[in-house]
């Protein structure tokens, strides 16, 4: 469960949103530059809101009033970046293992197997295809056993056929995850396909669409 109230001054407008999601996939849909990524970054703790409050499950991770601002590493949020941001000097297995405590690292390959890329464990990201890279990014984000998964335009870099394949994989994963997911996209049909709930972001304000 996530409950967030975020106010942040951006160059062109003020971001002022209230968001509440519980165990479902919420899609933030809007034009490029509408502040979608900033919302994810505020939730993950990579960007500090000017004011507001962010609660993940029963934990207050940010509160401007109470002076609470937990660093990203303490928030328990999995983040799949738009360009995946895989570590280029590490193998696929090392990318996943880095997110795990030392005693658990032997399980890195299990995560890769779960996403069907166990055979590519020793390959570096530059030698993976777009779809494989996305699977690796998802495996890495889930290896931290997050309470909340954030996906930032994670399908936009894929070619059309790989994207369709990854949509199907995400939909089956979505049901098995059992955690809240926030997905950001500028693609309307993607929002309708993947989200339980859709929020439209326009000029800094968020409005839920009836489904």
């Amino acid at each position, binding site marked *: 469960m996530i409950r967030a109230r975020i106010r942040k001054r951006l160059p062109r407008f003020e971001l002022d949103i209230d968001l509440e999601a519980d165990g479902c996939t919420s899609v933030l849909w809007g034009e490029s530059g509408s502040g979608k990524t900033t919302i994810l*970054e505020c939730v*993950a*703790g*990579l*960007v*500090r809101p000017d004011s507001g409050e962010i609660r993940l499950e029963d934990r207050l991770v940010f509160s401007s009033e109470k002076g609470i601002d937990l*660093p*990203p*590493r303490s928030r328990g*949020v*999995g*983040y799949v*970046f*738009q*360009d*995946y*941001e*895989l*570590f*280029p*000097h590490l193998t696929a297995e090392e990318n996943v293992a*880095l*997110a795990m405590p030392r005693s658990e690292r032997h399980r890195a390959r299990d995560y890769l197997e779960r996403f069907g890329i166990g055979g590519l464990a020793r390959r*570096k*990201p*530059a*030698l*993976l*295809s*777009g779809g494989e*890279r996305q699977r690796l990014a998802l495996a*890495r*984000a889930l*290896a*931290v056993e997050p309470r909340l998964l954030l996906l930032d335009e994670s399908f*936009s*870099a*894929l*070619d059309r056929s*790989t994207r369709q394949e990854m949509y199907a994989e995400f939909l089956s994963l979505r049901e098995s995850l059992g955690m809240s997911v926030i997905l950001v996209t500028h693609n309307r049909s993607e929002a309708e396909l993947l989200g339980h709930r859709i929020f439209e972001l326009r000029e800094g304000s968020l409005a839920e669409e009836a489904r």
Partner: protein
Amino acid sequence: MRSLGPILLSLRVAAVATAISLVLGLLLARLMTTRRLPCKFVLEGLILLPMVFPPTITGYLLLLLLGKRGPIGQLLGMMGTKIVFTWGAAVVASAVVSLPLMYQNCKAALLGVDGRLEDAARTLGLGERRIFRRITLPLALPGVLAGIALSFARAIGEFGATLMIAGNIPGRTQTLPLALYSAVEGGRAAEANLYLAVTTVLAFAVVAVVGLAESRSRPARRGGSVDTAASPRGRGGRR
């Protein structure tokens, strides 16, 4: 065999000086690229000063600091030791003049690492030190390696500042450039030519290392593949 002494001394001085400037240069570069310091440009100016100062002026400044009456020299005197006119002084001179090169290379290398990768590591639960050790430093390594090679070359060639604070004492502080100067002045052409040959070989080795470091830094460091629209967003650490 007499001519071997200055070569070995120079290698020893340059190696120790490069190690010192690596630690300091990397530390300072990290500090300057990650912290908001009130008088950053003053500190940076101080680091870079030996690059624009004539080496003899740098040497004179060091002499004022490390000499018998200088603040550091007095401190060393109280501890029953001294540094001027020892090989340690040659190390200090070489480290000070090579630090700007090391610092600039390390700073450029650290700034060249995509901040989004560091952000990704933050979301994976890594602390800042571990991010530096596992992500930033390995990705900045080619630039740091170039800094090591250039600083080593600068340290090997150090003349003016070394002469000021270490002197030109054969067998003790006479490094390769000083020995070359003495050999030319004394009309010992064969000895001077040997020093020239050794310096040329070392210079080629440095150029090779820098070239290798540059070629290693050229491939896609962000792990971008052909079908990914990469859009680097500059450095993170926006918190």
